[in-house]
């Protein structure tokens, strides 16, 4: 059994949902197959020639002769496996979201995950929010001073926090803290056969493990973001008052001006809030599904768990930043319309 065996689902070309033989009953089963696949070829059994068995069932079956794969074949294989793993990712996402509305509900697991993902991330979110707000105020005061426009600090801080920094920073922090945790937990559950045990005990592991985490992240990330925004703006207030000498009342007035400036949706909801709250919702989905995906696809023992964790953090961070851009563009065009 190779410790170095390739640690993703990628090695299974042909086991994507559409192409699969009747085996394909879900991402997990395919992951399962991957685990097994590496076993027979990697295990160096019968290493001593003198222990040759002399009897066999009958003539060994015909095997298709294949030459060493060329570079094109290999490129083709790796491209295929990449496409298939993306497909797997979306299958997992689809199942996880669908199971939110299907019995049995694992309410207790969901609440526990909300605590794990939301409440326990509060500390880091408060800290990042506070210091980001403070540094924003400090930097913008330097720039605005040249134009004699320091009274606009509040506008700058609130716009940046609510629209961009709040959601993105909360997302990145949670990806680091929670995403890695989920991947490590599910990864070690896979390598210690606990996922198989769940399957065997008649529980759908996606329903039991993935859905509660996804649901919890979808609920908690927007809440964390609101807290992050608020603390950031308060941090800006502290700097504005004590370093730049702008009275709090003026600061908060400019904050409100900024929020109101872009108009309201449905008369009462500032359009900045729509931007600021739809993003963390999407990020919550990205973080939890990426973490679950890599966690469940873990192979190769403890080393594999480490790899899955790293991959989760890297992939979800990048996804957050990329998706943030496109989401911003989409929302801007939607909201201005």
């Amino acid at each position, binding site marked *: 059994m190779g410790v170095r065996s390739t640690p993703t689902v990628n090695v299974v070309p042909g086991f994507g949902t559409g192409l699969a033989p009747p085996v394909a009953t879900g991402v997990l089963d395919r992951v399962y197959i991957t685990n097994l696949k590496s076993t027979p*070829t990697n295990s160096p059994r019968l290493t001593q020639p003198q222990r040759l068995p002399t009897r*066999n069932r009958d003539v060994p079956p015909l095997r298709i002769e294949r030459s060493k794969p060329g570079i094109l074949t290999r490129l083709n294989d790796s491209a295929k496996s990449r496409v298939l793993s993306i497909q797997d990712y979306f299958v997992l996402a689809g199942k996880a979201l669908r199971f939110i509305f299907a019995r049995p509900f694992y309410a207790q697991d969901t609440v526990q995950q909300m605590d794990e993902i939301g409440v326990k991330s509060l500390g880091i979110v408060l800290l990042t929010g506070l210091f980001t707000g403070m540094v924003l105020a400090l930097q913008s005061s330097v720039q605005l001073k040249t134009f004699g426009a320091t009274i606009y600090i509040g506008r700058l801080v609130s716009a940046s926090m609510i629209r961009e920094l709040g959601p993105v920073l909360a997302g990145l922090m949670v990806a680091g803290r929670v995403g890695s945790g989920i991947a490590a937990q599910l990864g070690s559950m896979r390598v210690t056969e606990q996922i198989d045990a769940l399957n065997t005990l008649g529980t759908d592991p996606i329903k039991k493990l993935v859905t509660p985490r996804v649901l919890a992240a979808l609920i908690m990330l927007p809440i964390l973001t609101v807290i992050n925004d608020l603390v950031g703006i308060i941090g800006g207030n502290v700097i504005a008052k004590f370093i730049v000498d702008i009275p709090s009342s003026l600061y908060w007035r400019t904050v409100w001006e900024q929020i109101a400036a872009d108009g309201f949706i449905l008369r009462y909801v500032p359009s900045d809030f729509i931007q600021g709250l739809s993003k963390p919702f999407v990020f919550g989905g990205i973080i939890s599904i990426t973490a679950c995906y890599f966690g469940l696809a873990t192979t190769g023992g403890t080393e594999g768990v480490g790899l899955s964790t790293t991959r989760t953090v890297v992939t979800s961070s990048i996804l957050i930043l990329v998706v943030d851009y496109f989401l911003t563009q989409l929302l801007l065009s939607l909201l201005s319309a």
Partner: protein
Amino acid sequence: MSESDEGRGSTGLDDAPPAQRREGDRKSQAVRRAIRSELETDASEQAGRPEERPGQPKPVIALSDVSLSFDVPILEDVSFTAHEGETIAVVGESGTGKSTILKLILRLLVPDHGMVCIDDEDITDLSFEEALKVRQKMGMVFQGAALFDSMTVFENVAYPLREHTHMSEDEIEQRVREKLEFVDLDADRVMEQMPAELSGGMRKRVGIARGMANNPEIMLYDEPTSGLDPLTTGTITRLIRKLQKELGVTSIVVSHDMRSVSRMASKIALLHERHIVFFGEPEEMFASEDPYIREFLGG
């Protein structure tokens, strides 16, 4: 057996995908190629095939002509039947696909060809949800016990009951105690402990208790005695026999511990190179003159 045979081995295992082609593998592949050519030159008659004997208790688990391959074939034309109350031990070298057979029975895998029947029902075409139902008839004991380490021992054993029955909390507690006592554990002492606090043998026993919590008609064991000291091995072996005797469950034991297998199996299936090369009673196997079987038993 000569070295010159090695040249013929181009049909060997070198059709593994590139991802699995590794330095260390190449050497063992050469060896295996040599073995394969050896087998080709000495392809003699098969040792044993599963057979249906009339007048026996009803078959509970039946594999017929099961073949499974991923990139390389893993099982070919594997057939055997486990009748009610029997304990079948599947033995063989590591990596011969022993555990795969358990996964086929649990329908975690589906064969490329052939049928897997549980209680005369072919489970190969079931949907995922239907398969979850069939699995409730079975209790599985994993190699490393696979206890849920976020739950206490009590919650672990109670898990299948909470998932699939409408038992009250009192009934569940009573059942958990009964099962823990069946596996010779002090229920009061271990119930609130976490799996990480238990020794390997205890964990395995909790695993057995969880597997049998639902009173399944089939028990599957994956290497139940591996990694245990001789005394604990004895205890686990006795436990499996007790389950078989007192509750009459049909069991499949995957193992390579011949000593304990000989003490609990009613039949042994020996897997070698993707095929079942022997299927019969332990005495028959120990008396066999077949060179490979002798080799296997001696080794």
